[in-house]
């Protein structure tokens, strides 16, 4: 391959191209553009040097903003040169300069020359016209030029030494119009003059006009004239071979609808200019475009799915909220019912315990009277049996008292009374109270009170009740060994521990023992009498006093119940 195709990109095209492929391709495009720019568009490799004149008549021929020649005629002559092995050199200048150079033989080919009989005498032309053209008047906005007769009294710019100059003068003269002719060296200047308001209109071929009129604020008019065929012109007599070659290639090019000829026409005359890209770049662009489209589509689908899921979630959320509201209302109602039921239960238990106390009053009272012998002397057997009645009656009373306590606590009627008392004395008292029971089982009770223990503020009666409960339990569940009571005063707390060497509690039963009406192992309840309420009441009382109860126990070794009360 000894020839490189020249590719010229307009800035405007580059922008479109960039916009088309969007930002991901921006940097790539810039690199491409840079590479293309550094390649010399003039570079051709061939034996025959051919000098071509270039002037400003876009889109047929012009110097692009990149500084390189471009246009329909350039595309075609490049194609011909490539096939013929010519080396093209370009010389730029104005239309009239180029015509002078052509006449002098300074350039070999002048593109875009309309054939006239007069020119036929000076220059040589080939046979097959490159393109046909006609000229048109482009009016400045507000000039009032719409048709031929509107040109009367107007100033019109026309290209000097051009075919349209001559044709236009003939045209206005033949209609007897008084039109001032202003000459310009090229179409660009002509349009500029009209745009500045120094003329009412300007003349250009329709190729140039279609491309540039709008940017100068000029409008199409119905004034069309001078249809002409455009050729490459060569100096007379020396370039016959060159012209024949052009004719031959033009004929071929015009037969093939996919040829550079038609592509060039399409490229330069369509408003939407097509960019000719290398195949690999087209593929790359296509691939990236597809990828971009896929990712856009993907993100759209994803977004759609996310939105759908969000809506679903919102709906679920709403349903959940409603359900929560309903359920809360149900629970509130159920709780109120439960509270009412609880109060009814507590009131019932209170009444019952009261009613039970009345007959118990006389049972315990008269048993006591008889037992004391107040009603007369008794024999030993009668004393023993009455003692049993008395014990049972007292146990029944304990049960009733516990039930009453529980119902008081649950009804919120139990009040913790605060008073200052001597804790040491209370401890002595409860130990003394339970010692007959312990003595009966041969269990010593060791009481150890820290010297720091003095006066204590709290509910004396309830604290004593708690200690009696714990001591009774310790004695009840211990067959041999000892009972220890320790009272200490570490960091603003009072700890009273009751330890035994009894049966102990399994780890999994520790929580169970605080539940009301429950003694671990139903078998035990026969062996160890009790209400099953003691520890439940004890823990509730301790909690109400702002303290806590701690249990350490090992089955078969013993238990330690510690009551920890805050000092206030």
């Amino acid at each position: 391959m000894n020839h490189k195709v020249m590719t010229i990109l307009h800035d405007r095209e580059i922008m479109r191209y960039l916009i088309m492929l969007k930002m991901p391709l921006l940097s790539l495009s810039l690199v491409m553009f840079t590479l293309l720019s550094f390649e010399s568009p003039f570079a051709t490799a061939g034996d025959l040097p051919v000098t071509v004149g270039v002037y400003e008549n876009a889109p047929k021929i012009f110097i692009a903003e990149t500084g390189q020649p471009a246009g329909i005629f350039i595309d075609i002559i490049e194609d011909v040169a490539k096939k013929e092995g010519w080396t093209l050199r370009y010389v730029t200048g104005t239309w009239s300069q180029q015509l002078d150079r052509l006449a002098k033989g300074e350039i070999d080919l002048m593109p875009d020359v309309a054939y006239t009989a007069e020119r036929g005498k000076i220059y040589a032309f080939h046979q097959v016209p490159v393109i046909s053209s006609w000229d048109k008047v482009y009016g400045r906005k507000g000039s009032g030029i719409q048709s031929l007769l509107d040109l009367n009294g107007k100033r019109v710019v026309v290209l000097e030494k051009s075919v349209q100059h001559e044709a236009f003068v003939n045209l206005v003269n033949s209609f007897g119009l008084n039109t001032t002719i202003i000459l310009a060296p090229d179409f660009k200047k002509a349009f500029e003059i009209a745009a500045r308001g120094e003329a009412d209109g300007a003349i250009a071929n329709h190729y140039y006009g279609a491309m540039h009129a709008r940017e100068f604020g000029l409008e199409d008019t119905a004034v069309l004239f001078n249809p002409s065929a455009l050729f490459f012109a060569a100096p007379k007599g020396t370039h016959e071979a060159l012209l024949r070659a052009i004719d031959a290639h033009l004929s071929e090019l015009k037969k093939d609808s996919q040829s550079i000829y038609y592509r060039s026409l399409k490229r330069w005359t369509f408003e939407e200019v097509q960019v000719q890209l290398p195949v690999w770049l087209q593929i790359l662009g296509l691939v990236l475009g597809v990828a971009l489209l896929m990712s856009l589509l993907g993100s759209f689908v994803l977004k759609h799915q996310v939105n759908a899921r969000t809506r679903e979630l919102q709906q679920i959320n709403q349903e959940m909220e409603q359900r929560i509201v309903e359920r809360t209302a149900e629970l509130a109602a159920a709780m109120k019912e439960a509270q009412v039921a609880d109060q009814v239960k507590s009131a019932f238990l209170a009444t019952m315990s009261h009613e039970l106390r009345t007959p118990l009053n006389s049972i315990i009272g008269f048993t006591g009277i008889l037992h004391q012998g107040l009603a007369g002397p008794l024999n030993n057997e009668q004393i023993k049996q009455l003692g049993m009645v008395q014990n049972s009656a007292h146990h029944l009373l304990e049960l009733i008292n516990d039930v009453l306590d529980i119902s008081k606590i649950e009804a919120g009627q139990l009040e913790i009374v605060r008073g200052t008392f001597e804790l040491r004395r209370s401890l002595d008292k409860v130990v003394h109270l339970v010692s007959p029971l312990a003595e009966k089982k041969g269990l010593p009770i060791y009481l150890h009170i820290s010297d720091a223990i003095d006066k204590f503020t709290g509910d004396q009666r309830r604290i004593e009740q708690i200690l009696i409960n714990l001591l009774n339990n310790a004695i009840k569940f211990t067959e041999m060994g000892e009972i220890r009571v320790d009272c200490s005063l570490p960091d603003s707390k009072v700890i009273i521990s009751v330890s035994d060497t009894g049966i102990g509690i399994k780890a999994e039963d520790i929580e169970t023992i605080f539940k009301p009406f429950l003694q671990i192992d139903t078998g035990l309840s026969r062996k160890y009498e009790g209400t099953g309420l003691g520890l439940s009441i004890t823990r509730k009382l301790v909690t109400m006093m702002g303290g806590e109860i701690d249990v350490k126990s090992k089955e078969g070794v013993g238990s330690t119940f510690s009551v920890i009360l805050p000092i206030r």
Partner: protein
Amino acid sequence: MSDTLLVIEDNEQNRYLMKFLLEKNGFRVEEAQSAIEGIEKALSAKYLAILLDIQLPDMDGYAVARKLRTVEELREIPIIAVTSYAMMGDKEKALDAGCTEYIEKPIDPDSFVGEIKKILMKS
């Protein structure tokens, strides 16, 4: 000063129990089975003290105590509430109504008379 105690109690067995214990310890006892009877007896004679049950069939013991305290001659007489009401505030209610002391049922036959004597000593 009379050595007679008035026992206002609707339950016959409990009334008899108190009467028996008190008489065994040298007191004399006058009985009333209802609130109205109790008030009438309290107004008609002079007693050492009044033992008052709270749950009575015609009116409660608190009302009886309040009624008795309105009578000039009965301002200072010891009124001892003897009751199985043991809910919160029962004792306070009794004292507010004008009772001097409060003994919870069931009474302990070993200590009952001793408690009564202690109260009488104080007043």
